[in-house]
């Protein structure tokens, strides 16, 4: 589904990704872990198409297409979703209208009929239960006046409504208390299925107690230095990143 090959990327003149390679197949959950500044968020942003990152080498193929050639909205139409580390507040743009426009843009790009207001509302009512949010949140501006936890839940709610094929969750656990973390994790687990791939970018192992990944990768200095199963996250938690990085260097 997603094939990242020897990816190099920089912001201005600062190299962030130095030959990152990663294969994600349909239905797999991959966790990308690493210390601060290792390039985790850069990877998430490059995959979603944010401006300001120069790709200086390598390739990213998504469902056979050159992902790097696609605009952010084309990626969304093709089924990619990014849950933001810092969801943006957009006063004056209504949550529910944004989502309806998003859902219908995706449907349109696939040649499907657009949902009318009634159908869309039914979809929203079903999905909002996943993240235990009140419906009146939906009539507000996008993330306007939301707490940190509410913003993250809103990201998962949007993911539930947009039903992506590939979801990239950028530090979705950061800033969450344990109750909110459980809600977010339950929401993600509910959305997990054999068709949908998920890439979890996280600093802490904590989230992975609730969302158990198929693969764990350690990112350091812009490259994946070690990969393993979910047990690798526990090893990181015990030994810290430095130990793992030293071992990888020695190898």
């Amino acid at each position, binding site marked *: 589904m997603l094939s990242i090959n020897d990816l190099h990327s920089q912001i201005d003149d600062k190299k962030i990704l130095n030959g990152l390679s990663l294969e994600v197949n349909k239905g797999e959950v991959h966790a990308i872990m690493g210390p601060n500044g290792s390039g985790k968020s850069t990877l998430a942003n490059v995959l*979603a*198409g944010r401006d300001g990152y120069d790709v200086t080498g390598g390739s990213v193929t998504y469902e056979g297409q050159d992902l790097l050639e696609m605009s*952010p*909205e084309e990626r969304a139409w093709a089924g990619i979703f990014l849950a933001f580390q810092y969801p943006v507040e957009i006063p*004056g*743009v209504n949550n529910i209208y944004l989502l309806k*426009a*998003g859902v219908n843009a995706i449907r349109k790009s696939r040649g499907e009929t657009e949902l009318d207001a009634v159908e869309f509302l039914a979809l929203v009512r079903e999905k909002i239960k996943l993240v235990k949010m009140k419906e009146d949140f939906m009539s507000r501006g996008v993330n306007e006046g939301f707490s940190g936890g509410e913003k993250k839940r809103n990201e998962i709610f949007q993911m539930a409504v947009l039903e992506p094929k590939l979801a990239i969750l950028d530090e979705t656990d950061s800033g969450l208390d344990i109750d909110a973390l459980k809600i977010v994790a339950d929401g993600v687990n509910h959305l997990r299925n054999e068709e949908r791939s998920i890439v979890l970018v996280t600093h802490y192992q904590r989230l992975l107690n609730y969302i158990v990944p198929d693969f764990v990768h350690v990112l350091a200095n812009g490259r994946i230095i070690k990969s393993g199963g979910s047990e690798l996250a526990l090893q990181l938690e015990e030994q810290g990143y430095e130990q793992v990085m030293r071992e990888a260097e020695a190898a």
Partner: protein
Amino acid sequence: MTQAAIDHYLAEHKRLSNNSAGWIEKQRLSALESLGRQGFPSTRHEAWKYTDVRSLLKQNFISVDTDDSTVGAEQMQTIRFPDLDCYELVFVNGHFNSALSSLPASGEAINVSSISTAGDDVRAKIEQYLNQYASTDKHGFAALNTAFLNDGTFIHAADNAQIDKPLHLVFISNKQNSSFIAHPRNLIILGSNARATVIESYIGLDNAEYCTNTVTEIITSEGAHLEHYKLQQESDLAYHIGYLHAHCHKDSRLDSHSISLGGLLVRNDIDTVLAGRGAHVGLNGLYIAGNNQHIDNHTRVDHNMPNTSSDETYRGVLDGKARAVFNGKVVVHKDAQQIDAQQSNANLLMSDDAEIDTKPELEIYADDVKCTHGATIGQLDENMLFYLRSRAIDETTARSLLTFAFADEVIKRISFAPIRERLEHRVVGRLPDASLISEFLQ
């Protein structure tokens, strides 16, 4: 330049004086004298530094002196706010058109009339209130308006009276054989605890070339409340000079909403005097300009008395080679303590060639005051743009949506929903790619 223009208008005044009403002659002649004395403003005047009116003065506009101009039903349809339950006073090329108008029944409590059709009793009132607080010395255009005073609206609500529906004053300009000028004058006088909602719309049709030079005087007596709207949608070739003066007595309230969407060169002045304790003014403004449009908003609030408050929000969206000016002056006079004055001006520049000159000015001569002001100039937020696009919204729609959301911060402050919704539609219609975001409107 200014002398040639003065001479032109003096001659014009002479030409028209034969069929002038006569009853208000003293004020007119005094204003003409004021015009001769002060001339028209130029960029040498600080208040007109960024707005050069030479192109206007060169035009030698003449007044339309027949009052048989009208507007077809179809065009009226596009001008009226759809299904808004209101009274309407319609003026075409400076002249009241009674066939297109619908007025409330006038009596002791409520008196609404066009100036040209005013009876003797109303004329007496007009003479009483005219320039009671406003002055022809404001600038040459204000003097010109009084010198040519011929038509407009007189609105009077007696103590405790409430005008039951909004009054929509519609000033329409359409194509004439030569380019022309109109000088509408509006007086809005509210007695103690009276209430009214007044909308002034300035609409240009058929890409006509003309100038609207309008003056509105407002007096709110103790405890009165006026909701005032000005919608400026002049034609692409039009000049618009507007001066609004408000005098607010104790515990009265003026909410002013000024929306400027049209015109080639536009200047709006709003002066408000908070003359009694507890008086409040809210100034809300939105300007959207593109191409070579020039829109200048100057506001001034005088806090003459303690415990008065003002709250001002102006926003602008500028595209193409448009230029806008914002100058918001707040003066807190000596011994006017316990003042709360807030002001903000935010601007969105959509192109490299658009320009804004913004200047908040505070003059404070008291020590127990809370005054804040701020001005921002920026572009669409890249983070917001990316967020929307990552949610499958295409870039053009996302830009349009964010631009609307920016402008809507001003519209949202309109508390009366029927007017808010209709103005929202006018604003959206002025934005690029508006059709893409129609479903975002609630």
